[in-house]
């Protein structure tokens, strides 16, 4: 199989889905109205509510939803072969993920730009809102823990990324200060920082430090067994654990510090750089595939499944979360994007189209691991890399990074530089997600503190420390961090549950409006079914050997059952005619001068 064929097949499916399916939804289900006065116009304040050109808004939405997760999921899931991953990414994006993002954006825009959390309360009830907060809390906890482990593993495997990543921090701080405190403008300092980052990446090939092992762990029983009597190999594995634990703690301290700084000082300059990195990475990989056309060496459906790997059905659907459907996107769509929608009809391009971009990122992740990396390592090397589910989980991202190196080499970028570039892209995405994640966790803890009158939790710094400590326990609690990636399926499940909740809210609204609700009900039922099945499978695996994972899994499972009960009750109420019957009753339908207001 040629990788160009796979790329073109995937992209063509996305384009067809956009042209046909999203048009049907826009016209006949969501019934977008070009004359509807969007919240951006109704509440325009120059900060949150700003009517924005649809191409610019697409860029904001896409760069906000794209991150490390759509790369990591497919990079692990190709253990079952490229075909299941490819099909789920393509079909999931078209029929589930994009409908979900588009729907969240539309519903929020029709409701004064309210977030999905508030909409859940309005459409389902206040109990569902508590449920929503709990799901988000677990989601943040897991995403922070998983990303800390991913970054640690990447630093160990690619020491060349250490210099550019840590040099980028003071550079971003300098840009933040320059932009905020001086009349330098935003563009020039940001572009200079971007150029500097590429200089750091180039220098990174010559400066490759490594963190010393601060912990000096003794080899665990599993490591001694895996080393088959070789004490040196067992000691090396234990040393790696020590270095990983060191990096995880450093990243948690970074999260603690970064999340307490003002957004304009560090997060925003980094976001600017990241959004460019995203477009550059997509361009490099796409061009690399077109120029080198590497064969997809990995099998279509793996017939050498390792003993510890669960079957692809149903685990595939929670391993690839963000690349096919992601509840997190609903938070972005209803949180910031809906407040900037210029015309309601733009929701199709921004919401549905944005998810096509995310699907493309997942698609190139599949190509980089099954074609790029597999060409580099050979079929046997590829099979050795994906020899167990544990090694696929821990090494999937490295396969992606190495695969990008191969593809970039095809367009004249030196392999070593390209590998560092790819590692820097993934680490930057993961680190900025951690920054936001810890920040949001702090808000939730502070809110819980004020709700239950626990004084210390209302202190911002203390709340951040509690958040980071919980993340640390989760990240390092499973085999000293070596098993940190085993949280990934739990993260995937929680993310899909958030998506299912949003789909439930949209379904109930469509049901009440007597429109075609199947377009959201079918993916919702599919997600409920797959996540429940996968969670039962996971709980059975963790029972008796990984109590912490079992505990977290059980908590997520309880949330899931609760959500299903809420769904059944809400749907029954809506069927009896008790659901919301109109959207935003106080929004007057005014035909406004389209040229005059923009």
């Amino acid at each position, binding site marked *: 199989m040629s990788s160009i064929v796979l790329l073109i097949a995937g992209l063509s499916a996305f384009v067809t889905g956009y042209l046909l399916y999203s048009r049907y939804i826009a016209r006949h289900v969501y019934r977008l109205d070009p004359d509807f006065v969007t919240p951006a116009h109704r509440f325009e*304040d*120059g*900060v*949150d509510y*700003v009517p*924005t*050109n649809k*191409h*610019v808004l697409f*860029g*904001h939405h896409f*760069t906000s939803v794209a991150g490390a997760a759509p790369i990591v999921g497919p990079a692990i899931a190709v253990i079952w072969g490229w075909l299941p991953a490819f099909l789920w990414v393509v079909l999931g994006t078209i029929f589930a993920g994009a409908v979900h993002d588009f729907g969240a954006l539309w519903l929020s825009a029709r409701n004064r730009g309210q977030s999905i959390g508030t909409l859940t309360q309005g459409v389902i009830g206040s109990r569902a809102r508590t449920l929503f907060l709990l799901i988000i809390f677990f989601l943040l906890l897991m995403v922070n823990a998983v990303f800390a482990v991913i970054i640690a593993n990447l630093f160990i495997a690619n020491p060349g990324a250490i210099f550019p990543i840590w040099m980028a921090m003071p550079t971003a701080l300098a840009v933040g200060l320059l*932009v*905020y405190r001086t009349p330098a403008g*935003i*563009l020039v300092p*940001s572009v200079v920082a971007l150029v500097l980052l590429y200089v750091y990446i180039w220098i990174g090939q010559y400066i490759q430090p490594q963190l010393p092992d601060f912990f000096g762990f003794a080899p665990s029983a599993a490591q001694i067994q895996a080393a088959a009597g070789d004490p040196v190999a067992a000691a090396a594995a234990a040393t790696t654990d020590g270095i990983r634990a060191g990096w995880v703690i450093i990243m948690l301290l970074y999260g603690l510090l970064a999340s307490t700084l*003002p*957004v*304009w000082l560090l*997060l*925003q*300059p980094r*976001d*600017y750089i990241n*959004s*460019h990195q995203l477009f550059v990475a997509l361009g490099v990989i796409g061009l690399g595939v077109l120029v080198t056309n590497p064969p997809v060496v990995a099998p279509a459906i793996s017939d050498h499944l390792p003993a510890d790997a669960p079957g692809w059905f149903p685990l595939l659907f929670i391993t690839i979360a963000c690349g096919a459907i992601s509840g997190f996107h609903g938070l972005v769509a209803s949180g910031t994007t809906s407040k900037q929608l210029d015309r309601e009809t733009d929701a199709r391009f921004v919401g549905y189209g944005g998810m096509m971009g995310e699907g493309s990122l997942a698609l190139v992740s599949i190509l980089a691991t099954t074609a790029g990396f597999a060409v580099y390592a050979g079929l046997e090397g590829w099979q050795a890399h994906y020899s167990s589910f544990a090694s696929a989980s821990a090494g999937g991202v490295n396969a992606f990074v190495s695969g990008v190196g191969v593809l970039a080499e095809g367009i004249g970028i030196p392999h070593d530089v390209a590998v560092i570039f790819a590692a820097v892209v993934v680490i930057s995405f993961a680190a900025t997600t951690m920054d936001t994640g810890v920040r949001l966790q702090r808000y939730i803890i502070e809110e819980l503190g004020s709700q239950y009158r626990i004084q210390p939790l209302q202190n911002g710094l203390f709340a951040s420390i509690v958040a980071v400590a919980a993340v640390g326990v989760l990240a390092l609690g499973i085999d000293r961090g070596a098993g940190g990636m085993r949280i990934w399926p739990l993260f995937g499940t929680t993310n899909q549950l958030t998506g299912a909740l949003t789909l439930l809210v949209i379904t109930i609204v469509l049901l009440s409006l007597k429109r075609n609700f199947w377009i959201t009900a079918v993916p919702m039922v599919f997600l409920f079914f797959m996540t429940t099945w996968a969670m039962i499978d996971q709980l059975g695996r963790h029972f008796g050997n990984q109590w912490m994972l079992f505990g977290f899994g059980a908590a997520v499972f309880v949330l899931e059952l609760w959500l299903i009960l809420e769904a059944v009750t809400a749907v029954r109420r809506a069927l009896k005619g008790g659901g919301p019957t109109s959207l935003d009753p106080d929004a007057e339908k005014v035909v406004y001068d389209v040229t005059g207001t923009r």
Partner: protein
Amino acid sequence: MSLLRRLRTVLRIYEEIGVAPYRREILRAQARQRDAFMVATMADALGVPSPVELYTLELLPYLMEDFHAWHRRAGLERAPEGGWRCC
């Protein structure tokens, strides 16, 4: 549309994608600082006794416009009671 103009539009959109969220965060940070200033100087307008109201009263004409934006941001559609109204 000529190719050059089209290219310029694409560049402007690309620039705006990066710059607009940045600008929003800066405006938000500025608004926060202004809010703090407003609370410190206009406390009496909210019914909170201010020991320096005689002096801050002089600022009133200059802050009227900002005051309106501030109470809207604070979630109050109309100005709070305080002997004077801005809307």
